[in-house]
């Protein structure tokens, strides 16, 4: 009887395609919006991801997320280095500064000052130049996206393409000369400003005069030492906040989740996909059942039990559900593939597939339940009146 159920399902092509399309649309919207949301949220802590060397980030206890810099006194670095179990601890400057471009325009840039001697915390990928070139006079390294967009030079002729900033070019950061010695690639950040690497001491000269300029202290623990335990020890001994990289990512993620409208906006889009999918699929499936009620009644009269009819309807729902889910996530994955390398944040993780699968399952179960109720209640004698 299951093949009868399937032939009843696919026989009416219009309804069948309507059902599959409704579920495809729901799965696509849920997966695509969730993936963009995940991509955006990942960008909030992408800078932490890029710095793989330190185990622990030390900062002012009031810091709520990676871009919420509350500077420390330089002496805190020595106190952290003094904690038992700390193998090394280096300073990191992070701040938004004004860069003056060749054409006189200003651009806000994200300046990162690395420890002068070790250059720990440097960019993950160098495209041109070397990290050690930062040790030369006034040297900076610029990320490739920033160099070719916001920091790009004026085109040579009106209407032409802007010329990317390149090695040897000079910009001014807070009225200080800075020479590009390298181009690097970093993960896209949430705020999307150009990223400029330099040494810690040079960064403090770029920065406006302030009593405290040390943004973070990056710490590596001794071999075999649990980073969480060391973080607790640093916090206890110094009164500062110390987080493992994962804890700092979670802190940043939680801040954006709780303090911005991003989850609500994307949540609405995902919910909309779910509701539209439910409405389209539910109504189409219900109509499909209604139009086949005469035949379900006939099957009942001819001896089909409610249990068998139930299994037939569940099979029909499962088939359209699996097809809609497959097409939807396939469409979303294709969308993500086509958008790779663009500014769009898109990150499709297994958890999203589970979410979309669960949502489609709920839609399908809902659609099947309202249809099953109708068929279960159907008096077989109705077939003589249809």
């Amino acid at each position, binding site marked *: 009887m299951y093949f*009868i159920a399937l032939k009843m399902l*696919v026989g*009416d092509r219009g309804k069948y395609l309507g059902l599959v399309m409704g579920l495809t649309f729901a799965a696509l919207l849920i997966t695509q919006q969730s993936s963009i949301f995940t991509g955006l949220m990942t960008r909030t802590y992408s800078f932490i991801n890029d710095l793989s060397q330190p185990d622990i980030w030390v900062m002012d206890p009031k810091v709520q997320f990676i871009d919420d810099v509350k500077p420390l006194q330089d002496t805190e670095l020595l106190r952290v280095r003094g904690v038992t179990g700390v193998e090394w601890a280096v300073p990191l400057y992070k701040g938004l500064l004004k860069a003056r471009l060749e054409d006189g325009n200003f651009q806000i840039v994200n300046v990162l000052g690395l420890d002068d001697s070790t250059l720990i915390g440097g960019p993950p990928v160098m495209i041109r130049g070397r990290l050690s070139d930062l040790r030369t006079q006034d040297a900076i390294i610029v990320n490739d996206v920033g160099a070719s967009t916001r920091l790009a030079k004026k085109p040579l002729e009106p209407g032409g393409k802007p010329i990317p900033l390149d090695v040897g070019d000079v910009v001014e950061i807070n009225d200080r000369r800075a020479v590009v010695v390298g181009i690097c690639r970093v993960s896209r950040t949430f705020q999307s400003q150009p990223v400029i690497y330099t040494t810690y001491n040079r960064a403090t000269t770029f920065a406006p005069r302030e009593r405290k300029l040390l943004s973070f202290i990056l710490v590596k623990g001794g071999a075999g030492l649990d980073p969480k335990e060391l973080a607790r020890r640093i916090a206890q001994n110094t009164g500062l906040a110390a987080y493992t990289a994962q804890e700092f990512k979670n802190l940043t993620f939680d801040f954006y989740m709780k303090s911005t409208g991003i989850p609500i906006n994307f949540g609405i889009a995902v919910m909309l996909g779910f509701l539209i999918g439910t409405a389209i699929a539910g109504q189409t499936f219900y109509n499909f059942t209604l139009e086949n009620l005469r035949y379900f009644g006939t099957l009942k*009269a001819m001896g*089909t039990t409610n249990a068998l009819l139930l299994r037939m309807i569940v099979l029909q729902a499962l088939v359209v559900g699996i097809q809609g889910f497959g097409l939807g996530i396939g469409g979303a994955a294709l969308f993500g593939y086509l958008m790779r390398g663009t500014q769009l944040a898109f990150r499709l993780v297994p958890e999203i597939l589970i979410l979309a699968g669960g949502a489609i399952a709920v839609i399908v179960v809902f659609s099947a339940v309202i249809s099953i109720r109708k068929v279960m209640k159907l*008096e*077989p*004698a109705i*077939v003589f009146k249809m």
Partner: protein
Amino acid sequence: MERNGTAVSLRGVTKSYGSGSSRVHALRGVDLDVRLGELLMLVGPSGCGKTTLISVAAAILDHDEGEITVFDRVLKSMSQVEKTRFRGTNIGFVFQAYNLIPTLTVAENVAVPLLIVGNRRRAALSRAKEILEAVGLGDKLGALPSALSGGQQQRVAIARALVNDPRLIVCDEPTSALDADTGRLVMDVLRRSALSENRALIIVTHDNRIFSFADRIARMDDGRIILVEPQVATS
């Protein structure tokens, strides 16, 4: 063999719909026997209870009072699931509007009753082919119902009703949608293919052109059997 060769026995059967002042009494104490090997026609004006009577006799509608025995099984004592299974193996149906599933081929439609009772698909289709050849539709196995004429569709419905060799076949206005010649052809097929000494047919009809095919005719009015007579000459 059933007691006294009786396929269906109804005693004091009542059935009403609705409640209170809107209550409609469809059957008001019906007594009727349908014998094995006979074709009984139920006739009467619209709304007199004919369809209700075949519905309760075929165990697709519960009656209120009285006793219905079908092949020595008392319907009141059976659960809904038992009745459903009983119908699957003992009762065939022919409907006025054929009720063929439009997305299935002719052979698949005919095979449905066998699939319902658990036969394998290949065996069911093979048996469907045999029965379709018997009703003269052996060349239409792969056609969809929409490609057939009304008479051909009704013959497919008859083949479907016969395919699992039920002992009772109930037909609701099997010829009302057909012209006279096609109606006679369908009745001929029904009488020739369906009727045997181990089977009974009950046909509800308004169509006096086919009365000549009946062994007995039961006339109904206002929920009662008012007359049961042997076949009478058609007008």
